[in-house]
């Protein structure tokens, strides 16, 4: 027998050898079996509840807040669901088990979460929180919303619009008047709708990478409509305050303590210096002026193009046009010599 044939025979023998089973003997183990037994002198339990009573609701909530950073999205979702159910079932008069000022900073980062179910659950949680608390965190939430709106993934972009709609509905005044809330949002919308018309030298605009269909554009326009309506129309709250006049005191609301936290935010005592974009525009007139300077022309031009498209897009653009027209109706510019 040559060496090579011998080798071959040996090889042949090795493969697919049938194990012989014998009566009365233990079954031979498969070649691929892995021993899972282990030896240990002691076993350490990582978490062990020594208390006999169940944890309080506060502790449970704190635990679930910690779990919001968990790597598994189901876990994140479940924690959000737990928090939502606790808050909704809570009596509205009693204070929340964990204050909103704790929940919102932790939860708001999930606006940019990759999983859709987590995001939807987050929106439910946010909607269950008391509106007054949302208003005081509007600027933070708006930052995250803006990040979501310009996100590379279209799902997150759409979700950002949803959050914005909700946020404008619940705390519209705060949203349009917070630092960077007006100009940066306008800029963001313009760039999303690609209405900047800066690169006007092009022959035709190619369909951009990751650009969505007209459905998303409609949503964007609707969001922009509600945003502009809040920003450019007269605030209703003011009207309400003005209506009830307790006679000798005319401007009581200016003298009482403000309900808002951080009343002097517009003075920007501790932050970095703001440029025009990051400035707070608390007045309707200010907003109108900035809107006129920076966005109106682009929006009008973009609307013209969009209205021609007709259909759903056309309807949305008509809505938008109406809002712009009404909002800017009483705007007149004083020609100030620089």
């Amino acid at each position: 027998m040559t060496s090579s044939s011998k080798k071959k025979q040996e090889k042949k023998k090795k493969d697919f050898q049938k194990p012989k089973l014998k009566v009365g003997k233990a079954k031979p183990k498969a070649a691929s079996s892995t021993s899972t037994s282990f030896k240990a002198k002691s076993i350490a339990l990582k978490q062990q509840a020594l208390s006999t009573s169940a944890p309080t609701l506060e502790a449970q909530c704190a635990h679930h807040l910690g779990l919001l950073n968990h790597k598994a999205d189901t876990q994140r979702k479940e924690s959000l669901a737990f928090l939502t159910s606790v808050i909704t079932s809570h009596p509205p008069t009693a204070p929340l088990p964990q204050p909103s000022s704790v929940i919102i900073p932790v939860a708001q980062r999930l606006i940019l979460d990759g999983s859709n179910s987590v995001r939807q659950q987050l929106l439910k949680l946010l909607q269950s929180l008391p509106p007054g608390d949302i208003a005081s965190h509007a600027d933070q939430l708006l930052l995250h919303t803006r990040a979501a709106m310009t996100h590379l993934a279209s799902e997150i972009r759409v979700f950002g619009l949803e959050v914005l709609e909700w946020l404008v509905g619940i705390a519209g005044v705060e949203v349009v008047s917070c630092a960077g809330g007006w100009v940066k949002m306008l800029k963001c919308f313009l760039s999303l709708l690609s209405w900047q018309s800066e690169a006007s030298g092009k022959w035709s605009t190619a369909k951009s990478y990751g650009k969505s269909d007209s459905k998303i554009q409609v949503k964007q326009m609707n969001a922009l409509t509600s945003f502009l309506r809040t920003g450019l129309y007269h605030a209703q709250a003011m009207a309400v305050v003005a209506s009830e006049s307790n006679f000798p005191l005319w401007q009581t609301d200016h003298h009482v303590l403000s309900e808002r936290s951080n009343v002097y935010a517009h003075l920007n005592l501790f932050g970095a210096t703001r440029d025009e974009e990051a400035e707070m525009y608390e007045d309707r007139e200010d907003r109108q002026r900035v809107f006129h300077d920076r966005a109106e022309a682009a929006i009008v031009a973009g609307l013209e193009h969009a209205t021609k498209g007709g259909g759903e897009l056309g309807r949305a653009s008509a809505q938008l046009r109406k809002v712009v027209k009404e909002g800017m109706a009483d705007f007149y510019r004083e020609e100030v010599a620089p």
Partner: protein
Amino acid sequence: MKRKVGAMEKVEADVAALRWKLKRDPQSYRDDFSNQYQQYETLRDLFLQDPGQTDSGVVALKDLIDFLSHTVDLYPEMTSTFHTELADMLLQHHDVLEYDLRDKIVGSLCLLKTKGVIDSITLLNTLFPILISTPSKSLRQLLFTKTLSVLRAENAKATNHKLNRTMQAVLFNLIESDSVSPQGIWAVKITREMWKRQIWSDARAVEVMRMAALSENEKVLTGGVRFFLGGDKEREEAAEESSDDDNDVDMARLRHQAGINKKTKKKARDLKNAHVSLKKKEKKKNAPHPLNFSALHLLHDPQGFAETIFSKHVQNSKNKLAHESKLLVLQLVSRLVGLHKLTVLSLYSYFLKHLTPRQASVTSYLACLAQATHDYVPPDVLEPLVQKIANEFVSEASASEVAAAGLNAIREICARQPLAMTDTLLQDLVMYRKSKDKGTMMAAKGLLSLYREVGADLLKKRDRGKDAAMGIRAGTIKDRRYGEEAVGEIEGIELLEKWKEEERRKKLEAAGLDPDADNGDAGLDNDEEDWKKWDVESDGDSDDSGGWINVESDGEDIQISDSEDEKDKKDKRPAKKAKLSSATPTPAPADNKETSKSVEPEAAKTLSKLLTTTILTPADLKQLQALRATTAIKSSLPSHKRAQLLAARHVDEAITAETIELAASIGKKNTKEEKVAMAKADRETNHQSTTAMRKEKKESEGKSTTNKEKARKKNFLMTLGKAKIKNKRSLGDVKRTLLGHIERKKRGGKRGNKGN
């Protein structure tokens, strides 16, 4: 039911894909870029509110920064503030930033520099303050390498003087502003690295190191001192290494492989690149060696430096330097003193305190003392030191190593300043040559032979040796006095002169003239010929020169202008370039012959004239060498050999403790382990047969196997058929083949060449 997703949607969150698309067509994807830029700005706002936070989400700030730093150069007008924002982020929050993000920002800034968005000075201005202030070790490491690579890249093609100057100024100020803080170590590290790579080799870099050596902080100061002691050696080694490692590419092999293997464009390109790089390396090798001064030579005011550093770090009893660092500083001071021949008198009195055998690492002190000795040190300063070494080290009671080290140290000192020795002490010390210990004996003999050369009259008469005794009797050997300098001369120049004179006389005699008489015309001819024989090749049998010319006596005959020479040689060869001196012949002084035979001092005068009046041509130099070789009797003498050895030792090289300890190790017996190791040293560790070695060699050369080897290795099954046929032949078959063989033989081979 699950919705089917298109290919575009799947990769939507992929910034890498978008980056690729942007690079292809920047204008079309402008909106997408602006969206991403806004996203970045928003995330940045979020980040600035809580810098330590790790942000979740599909696309993190880190990825966005990466993406933007690769693409901002495509949209410069949109992103003018990007780099300042990055720099601010890093400068303000580097200590709380997440590691990944921090490293990414550093990398992005470097990338922006490569892309030309920011210049190197801005980049270094950002990186350097963090480097010296950050508590994170990994960040320091990263920044240090980045800083070095920026500096190297900026100096790769041409020296970037502006950048170098700014950087050196920054480093200098860093050390100068706060001499107590340990931050200066970064200045030391960067400068040393740049020095090693020969990127910085000017006085400014040395100035930084001088500042470092004068610093208060021990780390910084030892860094600076170590640089002066070892920086140049390190530089040389690095240069050698870089020149060594370039013979890796075997061009012949590459070409051979290119001929055999599949031809692809990539392989062709690789071959071409290898060729180009090889050419470049060869060019570099042939380029003239850059003239680099050592750091010690580039120092401004070495005297002041030596004095300050000595009084500040060594003499000052208040500072608490470790003994090793003090010794390092002492080494530097003594090195400076020896090299620049400085006068720091307090140094010697300092040594006096430390020269006892119980002093820790005393051999280093001895070496330092020897190093600090030169011929301008007053002998009366050195005398007590030598006396003390003799008293403390060299005695019958002391151990043999100690005595040997002491004697060796004395010899090293006296080799530099022979006047430091008194005759009684010397005669005492010389007696140790009868010692039983070999090391002591050798050291004493060394001292003896040294003084036979430099100061024989201090020795007893019977110790002086033949040469010295004869020299003293003849009066040729005179003791040199303090501060006296030897007259510089070319070795063997008197031989050349003598030979030239003889040649001239021969020539004149051949021409039938009186050799001793004045004959200007003949001299003229000689001289013309001599200039023609500028090169060595041109000289045959009549290689002579027209004697030397006394300039002082015949100044009016000198013609310096080239045109005159041109006129003279119009019909002869084209003019040489090296027509510097006038070659106008003048008669040699009549008493020339007498002077060469007369007393020595006069001869010395004449030989100096030869050098001042003529230019030695290459032919002359060759002749000089030949003459020197013929009179080589002197060179075989041990004293001459020793002198040569001393001359071969570079002036820049330091005397170390090993030099002093060397003598003691001579007589030492080896231990068993050492003997075994020595016996084994020249043997191979793993035995291999000759065949195996040959085979290995062949394989390493990439050669194939021989036919014999192939036959041996051939698969058995392949040979079976042939073997079978051979065995099974019948008698008839065998007969037929045999007959066929005979037939073929008759025909003269298979084809048959008989008929035609």
